[in-house]
């Protein structure tokens, strides 16, 4: 039976102090090969110092249909922001 190499998502840390960031995807037979391919495809010009690969089927993503129920509740909670609070201008360092 013919089986295709699975799809992997690639995350690169560009330098220490920054988090890994999604850069794209690629196909590989296993995790080791995914790292090697990611090196060749996504870091040919010193774009990174660390690579994460995750097989795409293991990622769970929220759906755009859920966007309202997930994110709208934050819209009317202005009291979560520092500018909501009225303080006199003379006050310093707060």
């Amino acid at each position, binding site marked *: 039976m013919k*089986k295709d190499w699975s799809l992997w998502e690639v995350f690169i840390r560009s330098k220490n102090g920054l988090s890994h960031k999604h850069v*794209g995807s690629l196909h590989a*037979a296993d995790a080791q*090969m995914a790292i090697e391919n990611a090196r060749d*495809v996504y870091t040919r010009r010193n774009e990174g110092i660390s690579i994460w690969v995750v097989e795409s089927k293991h990622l769970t993503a929220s759906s755009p249909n859920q966007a309202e129920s997930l994110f709208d509740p934050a819209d009317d909670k202005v009291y979560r922001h520092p500018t909501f609070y009225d303080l006199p201008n003379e006050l310093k360092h707060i």
Partner: protein
Amino acid sequence: MQAVSNSAKEQVFQANIDADIKVEPKDWMPESYRKTLIRQISQHAHSEIVGMLPEANWITRAPSLRRKVALIAKVQDEAGHGLYLYAAAETLGIERDTLLEELHTGKAKYSSIFNYPTTTWADMGAIGWLVDGAAIMNQVPLCRASYGPYARAMVRVCKEESFHQRQGYEIMLTLSKGSEEQKRMAQDALNRWWWPSLMMFGPSDKDSSHTEQSMKWRIKRFTNDELRQRFVDITVPQAEFIGLTVPDSHLKWNEERRHYEFGEINWEEFWNVVKGNGPCNRQRLKARVKAYEDGAWVREAAMAYAEKREKRQEKVA
């Protein structure tokens, strides 16, 4: 009911596009938008991959080590660009194997420019300068295309293409300062690549079936003729700078329009190459199919090895 809700969705979709909010893979999109993108992104990916062939032809015969490492790096970049773009196309729900099959059976197109032969070393210069130059002209606006994964892939591609064009122009510059024979070689390459490079921008606006809808969807930002004019305007002075003559007797600066006027493209040749009858169409496809088939055992062996290791780990666990 379904029709009503789809047209409402389409209105929201277009409103988002008009507001420059990018479309991401899981967002609702009209089927025709999805199809257009799959066609365009996969054609683009195929062009990168097939585009490796005419240049790979000269790697073993590069005139110096400096030229050779640059050419290898460039061809490797094209492979990378093809992979970014295939990955972007796959986010639209099409499998890599299907894309490759469409290329190998001739169902999918790739840029016609790669169906022209590379007969001298100067062609490496002309391709980098003109072909990559025209590609950059096309690609920079695509960095702002409405589909997120495509736009992001194009940002990476554009960053890398700039080296391609500079290394090409450097080759032309060197040849044009060399012996009479080298100058002739550079001029000959310009003569052969100039018109096919102008053809890379696609049919004239009046004959371009996809332009209007693609502009509305903000996949395209400029028309074929606009980009072609811009390419002529910036490239002609570059040719003059190295003492080469653009092979167009109608070429003339129009002071009033602040643009170059140029001669009519041979559209018969353009359509003929698109339809598969260019000098190298058959050779290019044959080389692609052979590379894919010759690599089959490697793909299978890697899969078998991965499965074996997985089983072994299960046993240990």
